[in-house]
């Protein structure tokens, strides 16, 4: 059986960034193997041709291919081996990775560390159970994005979009610029999950209506979509469609932008603990999962809204994997569990493994709802505030973060405090 010190599953922004960080932390590039299932590295960014990436990382606004291009160049400069067209079939908790590729055939390799960087995939019609016929012309927004931006193929001309996440909004603009008529974007929630900037520049600029608290209740057409029925939903009654509000849209295409799911089949197969809220692995601050030596980063761990944060998280995982292989990891003295308090949906990491001399730990989290005027707080179960920050507005679509200073964590270690809570306090103003 072939051996590698570090196997990275996925050659998108997370995998590439982790590989670069591992080399920069002292690991020899020839000890690394990046496995990518597509024919080229770069991941989903290759089809995200719009601008808006890299403001935090590079201090400038890049398109997706430009952002991934920079990481591909960094990986090439460091001579990191990337095997494309390689599909990983299974992973075990003792770090055996089995994959197939045209170059290597069916191969099993053993590694001292594995980084999971498989990204996420889109929820499909099946996850929503929309009634109606099953014609062609129903696509996920990302699927249509691939058709247009990579294959150069227009999937439709009269379009309704369900879901106002950023991919749906971006595709409303893209299809409009390419000559399609986008009739409406329907959002079941009373607010959009997309950035205000995308609502303005992708919908308002082109006069595309955003129908909040509306959903698609029927798809019509035998071979091809001929139309969809849209109805308002009752907020007070489990978001059920309100009879009498139905509206028919004649269209040939329905795009779904209804959420992303971390792609964790391999993780599950290895028996690694998953977090119920993120649908990703449960990790410590180094992004190490419940299986020693197996790390996870990027959208396979939790769905990020900025690729800049994916890269940052992947750096953390890459450095930690390198430290493990090089024998530089500090021994863990005690694990402290992070839990969510009022207004917080999930945190990453879910636990902090404290060494004798703790370092700063940055906590990422999402809030449960749209709030104005809040204080974000990280405190011990005993009520000692470790870090807090006032915000004028927070929304579930924007990831928040707070950094617990090393000195405070040293205090937690000393006091024997059992757990840490992340929560928000409403400090006044309208919800």
């Amino acid at each position, binding site marked *: 059986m072939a051996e590698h010190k570090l196997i990275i599953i996925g050659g998108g922004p997370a995998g590439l960034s982790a590989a670069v960080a591992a080399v920069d932390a002292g690991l020899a590039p020839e000890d690394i193997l990046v496995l990518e299932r597509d024919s080229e590295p770069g991941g989903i960014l290759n089809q995200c041709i719009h601008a808006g990436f890299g403001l935090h990382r590079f201090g400038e606004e890049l398109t997706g*291919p430009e952002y991934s*291009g920079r990481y591909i160049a960094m990986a090439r400069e460091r001579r990191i081996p990337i095997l494309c067209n390689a599909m990983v079939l299974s992973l075990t908790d003792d770090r055996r990775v089995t994959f197939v590729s045209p170059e290597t055939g069916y191969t099993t390799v053993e590694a001292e560390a594995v980084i999971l960087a498989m990204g996420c995939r889109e929820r499909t019609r099946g996850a929503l159970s929309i009634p109606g016929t099953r014609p062609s012309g129903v696509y996920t927004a990302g699927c249509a994005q691939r058709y247009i931006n990579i294959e*150069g193929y227009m999937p439709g001309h009269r379009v309704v979009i369900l879901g106002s996440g950023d991919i749906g909004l971006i595709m409303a603009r893209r299809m409009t*610029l390419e000559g399609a008529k986008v009739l409406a974007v329907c959002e079941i929630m009373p607010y959009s999950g997309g950035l*205000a900037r995308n609502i*303005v520049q992708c919908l308002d600029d082109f006069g595309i209506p955003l129908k909040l608290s509306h959903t698609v209740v029927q798809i019509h057409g035998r071979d091809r979509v001929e139309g969809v029925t849209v109805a308002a939903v009752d907020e007070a009654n489990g978001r059920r469609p309100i009879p009498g509000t139905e509206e028919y849209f004649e269209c040939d295409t329905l795009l779904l932008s209804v959420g992303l799911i971390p792609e964790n089949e391999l993780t599950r197969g290895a028996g690694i603990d998953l977090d119920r809220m993120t649908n990703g692995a449960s990790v410590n601050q180094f992004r190490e999962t419940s299986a020693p030596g197996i790390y996870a980063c990027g959208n396979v761990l939790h769905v990020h809204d900025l690729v800049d944060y994916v890269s940052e998280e992947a750096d953390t995982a890459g450095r930690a994997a390198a430290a493990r292989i090089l024998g530089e990891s500090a021994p863990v003295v005690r694990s402290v569990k992070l839990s969510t308090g009022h207004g917080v949906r999930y945190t990453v990491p879910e636990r902090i493994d404290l060494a004798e001399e703790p370092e700063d730990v940055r906590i990422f989290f999402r809030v449960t709802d749209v709030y104005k005027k809040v204080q974000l707080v990280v405190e011990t179960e005993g009520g000692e505030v470790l870090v807090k920050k006032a915000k004028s*507005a927070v929304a579930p679509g924007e990831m928040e973060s707070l950094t617990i200073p090393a000195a405070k964590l040293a205090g937690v270690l000393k006091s024997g405090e059992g757990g840490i809570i992340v929560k928000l306090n409403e400090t006044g103003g309208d919800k």
Partner: protein
Amino acid sequence: MTTKELTCVVCPAGCRITVTLNDKGDIESIEGYTCLRGKTYAANEVTHPVRTLTSTVTIETAEGKKMLPVRTDAGIPRERLFDAMKIVRATRAKAPVHTGDILVADFIEPGTNLVACKDFL
């Protein structure tokens, strides 16, 4: 006097800003912003809104035709986006192309270029 309502895109707060213009089209007042960046955004957005255009053009490569992602290297007037798309559609590229190569110089406005966003070597 005309008033324009807009949503600020500077941060997630998404403030509703009202800009009042006099008959000459000059700004009389800006209300509803909560920070200076928001005020500047609103002033630019009502007098001279610009957008970065991103799209794709067909590129001839050794492996056949592919799609090359492209962008404008500066904002172009929002009302010219569809004119810009006509030029994009008529543009063809041929490998080798490097990220940042200019495909169309003085694109829509003098000094603004349509540039490649990916290497095709």
